[in-house]
């Protein structure tokens, strides 16, 4: 447990600067300051509310220019749809509907029905900031849901419900936070959801500046939709995530964001900056914010995620998790509940990296894409403290079992072809997963290390005529000698057995299918 000694006198340079207690308006302030291009002397601005409100004005004006996108293409027939941003003048409070090709950008924290309130609030605030002579930054102001999604009407010692109050400054910067495009965002079931980290002000500015750089390319390219003949998708790629390499689907949230930052840092040759931001983000809560209260929560990212994002290509590992093959082929469909459950536990495992999270993850019977291998190795070595040579050896053993399952399946398919009635009727995929499932059951039912390998090796050897490779000896030895815990040994066997080999000679889900694209049947 680390303790930070912090002077509470704000004049001391060492104390972290928060300015706002709440991260939401703090993020708006950070975004406004970064957008205004403030230099090293930005701290002096914190004592000048007029200067801050000027920055807010620019940010709100900019936000209104990035509120809604529109395409004039034919939503039903055109195979390429080009979207553009509506200007503030073109933005209307009514009549700009989805069916006519108007969509609210994913980073705006509002929904279709209530967007007009946010637009009106933004315009009246702009008006006030531009025209009022004297604005009291500490004046008491009602916080409305349209710009402060954390709030709602409450009984505050009164008979009726009323809006909570705060200062003018907090209200204005909450509005900035609601509008600013400089925050990670994506849609979850057609509802906007954004991510707000809980950092001190300077770290937040560093994050915003990096996100600005990172997302520039995406904000442009994300506006063009190219769709195949069968696709009914209407929204452009921006809605999958307004930053590059955003994971498809929305299970991975903050981990996906960290992975993208890691990859961007390497690609843009900014590993120092990206590394600092990753370290800032790890160990503090990330708030997922949405106008839909049910989508609001905090997620904690462990320090290991920063390490993984820096050391590995975490983005491709997350991408690889979308290419797992369920033992039951029907679970490979996009809407399978099991599949959703798997992504939830996979995300939790990457976030928490604990033994119990790993157990939950292992409970789903899938074959992992080979990109997942470094995570397994890293997890077993760093969190379970297992020696590298044992992990390597366990991997060889797992690969052997996976190979055995493949050969059992091949044999079955060949026999099926020879038989009149088609035999078992299973194809290669189904036969292999069945073989894997059986080996898994054997492994799980073993009560002692010696029984574990005796049963597995006999089963494997008998059905496939293949011997345990020498490389696996170290693992078998270590388990039998008690160098590693029996339960951990079983985890190693299960995890590595499911890892698909590099060559992937058996038929698997195609790597390029759109089955996770929630927008494929975009009815809206």
């Amino acid at each position, binding site marked *: 447990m680390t*303790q930070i000694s912090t002077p*509470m006198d704000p004049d001391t340079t060492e104390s972290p600067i928060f300015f706002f207690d709440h991260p939401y308006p703090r993020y708006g302030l950070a975004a406004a300051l970064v957008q205004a291009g403030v230099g090293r002397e930005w701290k002096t601005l914190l004592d000048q509310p007029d200067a801050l409100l000027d920055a807010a004005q620019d940010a709100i004006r900019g936000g209104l220019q990035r509120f809604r996108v529109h395409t004039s293409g034919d939503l039903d027939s055109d195979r390429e749809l080009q979207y553009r941003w509506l200007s503030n003048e073109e933005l209307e409070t009514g009549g700009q509907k989805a069916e006519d090709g108007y969509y609210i950008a994913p980073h705006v924290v509002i929904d279709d029905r209530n967007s007009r309130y946010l637009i009106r609030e933004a315009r009246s605030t702009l008006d006030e900031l531009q025209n009022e002579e004297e604005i009291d930054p500490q004046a008491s102001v009602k916080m409305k849901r349209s710009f402060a999604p*954390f709030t709602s009407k409450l009984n505050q010692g009164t008979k009726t419900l009323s809006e909570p109050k*705060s200062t003018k400054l907090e209200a204005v910067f909450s509005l900035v936070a609601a509008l600013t495009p400089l925050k990670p965002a994506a849609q979850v079931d057609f509802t906007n959801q954004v991510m707000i980290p809980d950092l001190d002000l300077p770290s937040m500015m560093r994050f915003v500046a990096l996100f600005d750089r990172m997302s520039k390319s995406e904000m442009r390219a994300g506006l063009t939709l190219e769709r195949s003949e069968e696709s009914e998708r209407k929204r452009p790629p921006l809605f999958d995530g307004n930053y590059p390499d955003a994971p498809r689907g929305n299970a991975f949230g903050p981990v996906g964001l960290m992975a993208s930052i890691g990859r961007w840092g390497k690609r843009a040759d900014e590993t120092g900056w990206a590394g600092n931001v990753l370290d800032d983000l790890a160990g503090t*809560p990330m708030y997922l914010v949405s106008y839909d*209260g049910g989508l609001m929560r905090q997620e904690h990212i462990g320090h290991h995620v920063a390490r993984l994002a820096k050391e590995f290509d975490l983005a491709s590992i997350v991408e690889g998790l979308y290419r797992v093959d369920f033992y039951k082929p029907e679970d490979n469909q996009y809407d399978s509940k099991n599949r959703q459950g798997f992504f939830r536990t996979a995300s939790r495992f990457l976030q928490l990296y604990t033994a119990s999270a790993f157990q939950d993850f292992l409970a789903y019977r899938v074959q992992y894409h080979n990109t997942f291998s470094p995570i397994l190795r890293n997890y077993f070595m760093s969190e379970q403290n297992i020696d590298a040579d044992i992990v390597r050896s366990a991997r060889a053993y797992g690969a052997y079992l996976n190979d055995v399952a493949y050969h059992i399946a091949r044999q079955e398919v060949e026999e099926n072809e020879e038989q009149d009635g088609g035999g078992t009727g299973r194809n290669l995929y189904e036969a292999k997963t069945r073989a894997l499932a059986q080996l898994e059951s054997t492994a799980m039912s073993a009560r002692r290390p010696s029984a574990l390998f005796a049963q597995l090796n006999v089963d494997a050897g008998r059905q496939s005529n293949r011997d345990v490779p020498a490389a696996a000896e170290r693992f078998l030895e270590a388990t039998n000698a008690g160098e590693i815990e029996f339960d951990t040994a079983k985890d190693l066997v299960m995890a590595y057995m499911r890892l698909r080999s590099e060559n992937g000679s058996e038929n698997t889900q195609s790597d390029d299918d759109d089955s996770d694209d929630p927008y494929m049947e975009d009815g809206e």
Partner: protein
Amino acid sequence: MAANKLDLSFFLEPPELDTHAKLTIEALSALSMTATQPGTYYRSQPAPTEAMLYGLLENALGWHFPEKVRSNVLKELRSEAKSELGRGHPQKKEPWITGDDDVESGSGFTSLLQHHLEFEMSALPDTMHFDDLWARHARGSGTEFPGGSRHYDVRLERVVSLERSDDIKFGDYSSYKIRDPDALPDVEEGDKVHVKALRPQYPQYYTSPTAREYVIPEGPYRYRVRTTARLAAQLKDALNDPAAPLYLGNNDGWVEAEWEVITQ
């Protein structure tokens, strides 16, 4: 604390903060310290704000006043302090007397201690965060109450069962014609019942499960404090035998607080 009178005389002394003390706060349960923007998702501070700490100390001292009483008390204390200082005393321009710089928390709490006690340094523990649902009590003339009340008049049982199996609907639309409570026993499948008809049979309060962030500190919160000698002694007694349970954030967040005067 057996005394019937609250001793606020510390306020009359000029705030010469020459006594140092250590305040150590240990959480006895998860804390949810929301400083601002409550309602839909109650985000928690990882550590208490100064207002929350003042509130904790005043809780221990037993100084629980409604807003109006508090501002009157402050006014009277200030006028008493002014008369003790005498005419033309320069200290009369100090914020302690003028009240110009009084800090008020987001919920309108103005601490009586704020001029006589300063938080100098803090050592904050790491925290673990999680979300949970909290039963927010609400009362309003709106239409949400049927969904949020577990209790209603027993005579309404049949009507509520019909609604739960989607045979009838509750709402406040003008097209919902059944508005008379006496008509409820005759309600049939397909009817639309206006909430006006239900209101008398429901309690005034309902609960709304609201998402709330909680933190579990992995150690104590430690503060170094500057105060007057008299207040230091008073707080020592109060924290030894607090007038009320001590909490930080919402009142489920019970804490243990220790006070130790440090000799310079």
